[in-house]
């Protein structure tokens, strides 16, 4: 029941937007699609939704092409271009239009409008909505049918802080309940917080396909205690390795917060601080990957 790209290629004239792209988004996971502008992310998403026809290869959902699914519109929710709606139609009518195609009740329309926080502006014309509101409206449309799959292209663009936080919770809960998410985003720090895996596309080709757990140090915690030496002893005895954060009283450990708390509690040590390490690992990983590839391209072009 996964989303699968099998050697998908797509050309526009002489330009290859996608070149033998293959990757899988397993059920119950969130897969982040990374890449520069024009790398081919949106084309890939359109291919899997049947909006664009691959030149070669197949993109499937639950082993079927989107249009061959029994009820594709019910199974899959998508956000592709939040600004792509008639500017002179109200937010509520925009969503009602799609709801009637999906044979979804009018009460569900109001439910999702309230869910995304647009209940109060349903009568406002689409052109008068802010970018964040348009993004919320697009998410409301994607959620109309309680789908099993979410395919989202830059869904965080323009969302405010509350919106981003709400969206993060929504995706994590959705995946935890067995849903499958494929999301393209440039907000790597956000992706780091909820994605299970990332696929990096560069100039239409997959550069890497990685589980985030394989990135060393991604789930690190920063801790500070009343007795750092005692804590080091306790955690080391439990098989964990710690590092001091230079110039601070903080320690860094790669472990679950619950385990660290338990060990500190057992050793009679008071934890003064325990928080996820604010890292830029995904960003570093991504930039390294793209730079390495560009370097190779440079070499090749010289040769």
């Amino acid at each position, binding site marked *: 029941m996964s989303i699968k790209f099998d050697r998908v290629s797509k050309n526009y004239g002489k330009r290859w937007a996608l070149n033998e792209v293959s990757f899988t988004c397993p059920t119950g996971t969130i897969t982040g699609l990374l890449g520069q502008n024009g790398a081919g992310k949106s084309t890939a998403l359109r291919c899997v939704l049947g*909006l664009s026809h691959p030149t070669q290869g197949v993109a499937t959902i639950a082993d079927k092409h989107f249009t061959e699914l029994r009820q594709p519109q019910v199974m*899959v929710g998508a956000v*592709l271009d939040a600004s792509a709606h*008639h500017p002179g139609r109200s937010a509520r009518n925009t969503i009602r239009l*799609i709801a009637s*195609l999906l044979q979804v009740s009018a009460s569900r329309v109001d439910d999702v409008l309230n869910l995304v926080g647009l209940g109060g502006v349903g009568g406002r014309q689409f052109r008068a909505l802010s970018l964040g509101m348009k993004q919320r409206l697009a998410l409301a449309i994607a959620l109309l049918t309680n789908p099993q799959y979410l395919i989202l292209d830059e869904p965080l663009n323009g969302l405010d802080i509350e919106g981003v936080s709400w969206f993060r919770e929504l995706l994590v809960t959705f995946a935890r309940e067995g849903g499958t998410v494929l999301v393209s985003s440039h907000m790597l720090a956000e992706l780091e917080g909820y994605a299970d895996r990332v696929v990096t596309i560069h100039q239409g080709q997959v550069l890497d396909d990685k589980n985030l757990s394989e990135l060393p140090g991604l789930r690190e915690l920063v801790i500070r205690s009343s007795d750092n030496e005692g804590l080091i002893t306790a955690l080391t005895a439990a098989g964990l390795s710690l590092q001091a954060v230079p110039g601070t009283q903080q320690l860094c450990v790669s472990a679950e917060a619950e385990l660290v708390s338990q060990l500190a509690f057992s050793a009679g040590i008071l934890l003064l601080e325990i928080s996820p390490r604010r890292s830029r690992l995904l960003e570093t990983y991504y930039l390294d990957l793209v730079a390495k590839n560009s370097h190779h391209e440079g070499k090749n072009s010289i040769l």
Partner: protein
Amino acid sequence: MIVTNLLNEYRKLLTARGSLAVVVTCATLLVGVAAGVPILTYSLGGPISELSASMAVAALPLTILGSVIGILIMTMDWQHRDITSILVAAPSRPQLFATKMLTSLIAGLIFSLLIIIANVTALLVLTTGGVGIDGKIFLSMAGTVLSLGIVWTLAGSAVASVLLSLPLTLVFVFVQALILDPALMFARPWGEYFQSSAITSALIGQGPVLPGLTSATLWILLPLVLGAWRQFHREAA
């Protein structure tokens, strides 16, 4: 399902401010002219035959306004890029295309009926004042109006399905109706085979069949086939 899809197309047309304004303006213009022409003819002392045929004059704007509605129905999803959400919600492109053509056809019928009703109402008001109407001419004119409504709305939709752009199709239709068609009148005898008005003339039995067929092929059938192919294959982005 067909009814739901049809209602959805009308909902698209009537829930967006711009297209609603176009529909209301077109309907008001058609009703105004349909009711106004017989009243004007009567007040100027026109003969009964002229009064009975007033509907045909009133229907002339339908050639352009019918096309405009057909174009609007066919292009609005693509023009404002709602098409991505629509195709995710209802992925069958052939179904969408067929629904739009059917919507145009019904819209053409509705507009024609509006003209007929407005004209009949005006004539009824005048006949209570003792004016007679030639029923034969009147019925023939009603047929003309229905043909005009259907043909021009379908033609507008057909061309729009190929171009998929509201401004481009509007320019095309205006040039065709206001420049090309009149110009072809001077290119007899072959010109009539390409004149779009030949379709209506053939339909109401006031012109030869062959030019009607060639013209219908050129302005409706061919664009329909090309348009269907384009709609089924165009990237939705």
